[in-house]
């Protein structure tokens, strides 16, 4: 693709399904997921990359959905909170969040879960300090983070002890 265009044909895999659309160049990935595909679990908070509510996975790595254009996801594999939830990949985290009361309004929760899953994939047994540091890019205005850290730590410990057996 060489000539600059205002409408772009894209083809990508979202939560395991092939999706083809024509999108305006200026449409960001989070808005594309929400408005075109009705995947509204990806939330849009600050729209400048600070709050982390729009966190999604592109080709396996978490990114800000508001700081990437849908056109840039052409040919990519995108996973949203709906995909991770349906595949049960984050089932343990979800249960732990409920158990420890790690969400109140829930606005930040999808982004926090995406980030937490990415952390535990790369670092199975993080310290509380490391969990806090990793989640520093995900704002929660309700919980004060304590219960979120509790939940992630509990899942990490459970997975580690299970893997030892």
């Amino acid at each position: 693709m060489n000539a600059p265009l205002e409408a772009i044909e894209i083809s990508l895999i979202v939560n395991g399904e092939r999706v083809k659309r024509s999108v305006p160049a200026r449409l960001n990935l989070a808005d594309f997921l929400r408005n075109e595909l009705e995947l509204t679990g990806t939330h849009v908070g600050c729209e400048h990359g600070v709050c982390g509510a729009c966190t999604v996975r592109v080709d396996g790595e978490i990114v800000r959905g508001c700081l990437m254009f849908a056109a840039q996801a052409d040919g990519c594999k995108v996973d949203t909170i709906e995909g991770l939830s349906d595949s049960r990949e984050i089932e343990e985290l979800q249960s732990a969040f409920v158990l420890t009361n790690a969400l109140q309004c829930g606005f930040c929760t999808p982004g926090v879960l995406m980030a937490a899953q990415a952390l535990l994939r790369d670092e199975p047994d993080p310290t509380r300090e490391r969990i806090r540091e990793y989640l520093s890019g995900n704002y929660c205005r309700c919980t004060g983070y304590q219960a979120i850290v509790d939940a992630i730590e509990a899942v990490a410990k459970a997975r580690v002890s299970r893997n030892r057996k």
Partner: protein
Amino acid sequence: MKAPRFAYARPASIAEALALLEKHGDDARVLAGGQSLVPMLNFRLAAPKVLVDINRIAALSGIKVAKDRVRIGALTRHVELERSADVARHLPLVAAAMPHIAHPAIRNRGTFGGSCALADPAAELPACALALGATFIAAGKKGERRIAAEDFFRGLYATALKVGELLVAAEFPLPKPGYASAFGELARRHGDYAMVGVAVHGSTQGQKFADMRVVFFGVADRPQRAAQFERSLDGRPAAAKTIAAALAELDADLSPRADLHGSAATKLHLAKVLAGRVLKKMEGVAA
């Protein structure tokens, strides 16, 4: 809070990108990681007619170690620098800076070249490039040219890159034996741009400071070497006492402007505190 309208192009090679940049001139902006440019578009601080997305140009990515240098491609993501064994081994200053740059999801997209070409005065990598004496490589229609880090950063969000040029890489000389580095910054929240930061590189061989390069960021319109401070370290014992005695020189070297983070006096004070802490951590410095 949405980006203004623009036309999008995704060149597959450096030559294609340069052709687009030449054709559209001032109307075009390069889209690398987009972690600063997209917020600027959303805030309508920038409104280019054309975005040239270089993310699919494989030749711009990667870290290569040669006999006397490390070459970092402009499109190399922060996360690649963070995880690179070569960077940890040969450019420990850059490795030490990485955890301070934003957050994991941002580091997965943000690029080395994007950070340097944007030239935010509070950014970490431009200061590291200056401290390590890196050379930037820009491609244009007449070929490549090399720009020393000293000449590359020209002011607030301003670099030596010309319209139509593309930053393709930077080369860092391999540190000589006896050289060490240290890095630190103060930020209100983890991952924020620094209120004050410092990147240090120099020799502590034989328990003496030599060839010290002390670069502050977040205190001027660009990363800034502290020349008097460096001079009052060089040739003296690599020890806490020397550092403490030299800190007063920063009054002459730095004249920070007040900003949202604090008054000029506060920033100068923090620069001294930080320099004292960071230099003491340098390998080879006696307590």
